[in-house]
């Protein structure tokens, strides 16, 4: 698949995300084989490996996390490529600009020996923030979704900082088929193509690549057994949980169950995904702040999104305010609104203009306007919007300011498509 797409040039630096599981170990093995001289078609890129420790999400103790990291690092070090170790809580304190924070450089330096693992304890504050965020999300589906987004953010951030132009992920076809259905179930239909395609270019500079997307998980397991590829099993948030605890878990059970009876299920799903594509919007303002995908909330009046908004209005506001309902407002905006979710503004209460506090807090509506449909559902689950990682909130604040700026100068902006010359 790598050769077919001609995406990866010779000598390019590629960051490989290793989770320690079967699929990514298989990918690692294949990369090693491909890079060594014996290979039939030599792969020619320079890989770096990264492992993200997600132990914080399931409340693993520090020793357990250390043990897991050690195991994975051993596997990674055998390959001889530069290895990095990151923890999920670092996503809470990512900085956008790559040139600030030289202090961060030491965190992400190559981990060459196991002793460096004591650094895990340094992220306590971030860990607390992450735990608070996780706790305030009520449903497991939302938690999983958020973990996935944070993971991607870390990978992309690391790639940007270290000068990698591509990120490689080890997703096999079964996993991607489940991902596709989960995306549809969460309202991410517009991003389905990006999530399951070979090349995912939602961020302007970094491309995410999925080389083993054509192999089913059974094939991967078989390959690992035949070639003695070591892998580490690390429990996730939904391991051994009840079936319907989260959307992804349910979908996994559904797809594997269907696959047993109709063997062509996963390949059908993958083929459908291949035929779809996502429109790429040009500026970064049209990207969702959490998942970096293009916003899909620009919809005509007859659509699911406006139907949902209308339902909420109709059910929550009195019929009097219904007459002033317009499709622009998420809520009727009137003071008679009684729903609990809408009153969650962290503002000091004086309204946006005269806010005296130093940190301007974002209201829930403002946050929502910068998110895609599915991430809005995530936010709905969240009790307190300010618990989101700081860089996301900063991003949204910046967008708000730019929107205000734009509306002031709107009359004088020339639309490039209107001017013929």
């Amino acid at each position, binding site marked *: 698949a790598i050769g077919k797409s001609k995406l990866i040039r010779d000598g390019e630096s590629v960051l490989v995300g290793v989770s320690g599981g079967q699929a990514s170990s298989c990918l690692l093995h294949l990369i090693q084989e491909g890079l060594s001289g014996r290979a039939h078609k030599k792969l020619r890129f320079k890989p770096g490996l990264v492992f993200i420790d997600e132990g914080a999400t399931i409340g693993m103790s520090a020793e357990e996390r250390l043990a897991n990291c050690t195991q994975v690092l051993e596997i990674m070090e055998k390959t001889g490529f530069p290895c990095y170790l990151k923890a999920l809580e670092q996503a809470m304190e990512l900085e956008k600009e790559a040139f600030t924070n030289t202090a961060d450089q030491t965190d992400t330096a190559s981990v060459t020996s196991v002793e460096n693992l004591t650094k895990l304890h340094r992220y306590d504050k971030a860990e607390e923030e992450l735990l608070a965020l996780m706790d305030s999300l009520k449903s497991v589906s939302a938690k999983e979704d958020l973990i996935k987004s944070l993971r991607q953010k870390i990978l992309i951030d690391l790639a940007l900082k270290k000068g990698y132009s591509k990120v490689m992920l080890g997703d096999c076809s079964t996993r991607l088929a489940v991902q596709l259905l989960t995306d*549809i179930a*969460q309202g991410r239909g517009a991003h*389905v193509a990006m999530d399951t395609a070979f090349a995912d270019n939602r961020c302007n500079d970094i491309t995410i690549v999925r080389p083993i997307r054509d192999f089913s998980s059974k094939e991967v397991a078989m390959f690992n057994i035949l070639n003695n590829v070591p892998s580490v099993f690390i429990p996730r948030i939904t391991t051994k949980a009840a079936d319907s605890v989260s959307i992804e878990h349910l*979908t996994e059970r559904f797809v594997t169950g*269907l696959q047993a009876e109709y063997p062509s299920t996963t390949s*059908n799903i993958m083929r*459908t995904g291949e*035929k779809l594509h996502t429109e790429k919007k040009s500026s970064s303002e049209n990207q969702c702040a959490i998942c970096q995908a293009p916003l899909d909330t620009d919809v005509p009046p007859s659509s*699911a999104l406006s139907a*949902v908004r209308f339902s909420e209005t109709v059910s929550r506001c009195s019929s009097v305010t219904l007459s002033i309902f317009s499709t622009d407002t998420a809520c009727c905006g009137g003071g008679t609104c009684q729903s609990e979710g809408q009153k969650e503004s962290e503002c000091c209460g004086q309204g946006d203009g005269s806010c005296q506090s130093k940190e301007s807090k974002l209201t829930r509506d403002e946050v929502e306007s910068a998110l895609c449909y599915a991430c809005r559902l995530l936010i709905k689950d969240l009790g307190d919007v300010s618990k989101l990682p700081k860089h996301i909130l900063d991003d949204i604040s910046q967008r708000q300011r730019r929107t205000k700026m734009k509306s002031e100068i709107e009359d004088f902006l020339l639309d490039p498509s209107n001017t013929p010359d």
Partner: protein
Amino acid sequence: MPIKCNLCEAGAILKRPKTGDALCKNCFYFAFEEEVHKTITDANLFVRGETVAIGASGGKDSTVLAYVLKALNQRYDYGVNLVLLSVDEGITGYRDDSLETVKRNQQQYDLPLKIVSYEELYGWTMDAIVKQIGLKNNCTFCGVFRRQALDRGAILMKVDRIVTGHNADDIAETVIMNVLRGDIGRLQRCTAITTGTEGALPRSKPFKYTYEKEIVMYAYFKKLDYFSTECIYSPNAYRGFARAYIKDLEKIRPSAIIDIIHSGESLSVKKAVKLPTQGTCERCGYISSNPLCKACILLEGLNRGLPRLGIGKSHKERRKLNEMLAQKEEAGNEKTTPDNSRETTENASSEKSASGSSKQKCENCSCGQKCLAEKVEDLQLDRRKIDPALIDF
């Protein structure tokens, strides 16, 4: 402490499945009707002076649809003439009971009613079809035939538009099912609120954003009368898997149904993908993406004793056909070479001998052997497997 209704001060008697808000009876009616009204006005479904046929099966969706449309038509003055249209598939124990309900509806709402049946249109009832084909792919026949039957009945009543009671759950199931089946063409079309505008009558789904549970709640509280059994042939349908999945999803996150519809609406297909183009059927003039429409193919298969003609992979059918011919060759004295069966012309000639020996004639047109050859040729040319996913009715 009794929970108060969100909108007025009365005590709440139900919780809306869609948004989880507590409402009292009248506010629920209001919310429900307003939502349907908004769906209709946003999509500009109705034009003043049109005649609109309501596809009435006697089930909950169509009963509530008839009631609500009549009420909204009076309240907001859409200016449309409503009529009821019902299809009799010939399933004993299911359809004859539900037809009684439709007749009662007609009297209650005072709307004209027309019933069309498979027997008079095609010469086959669903019971007979199931006897031939078994329980696994019978939904294909029923769905394809019903679509045509609705159109034919509507033309007889001089109707401008058909509305059906498909609700949000149905559309979500359809999206999932099309993804699982890999049917890109249908996937694009299935979330549109109005389908089939070229050549055939437009069909709209005003209940596109209403949950099934809310429809049931509405009917329950308003004490509307409907027939509530599942079709006796449905348990083995592929749709059942998608339905079970959606029911489970709804338990985890009630808004999942609308989310799936939103996903479906936001899907966009790559331009390079080849989608089936629409033409007309050569035999009956109905809209079709192949030279012969699906209904004609299915019907031919039934009449010839090859019930699986329109279903499944065509090369398997060809193989079966060749086996049948090989057997006939031993019995008769015809010289047909099974090896050359891949050639179109060879097959056509062998088909001619087969049809000659079995002395069958086309039901719909009297050309005898020729149209069958045409059809086999079409099947051989038909590379794309159009799976029996019935959506478009």
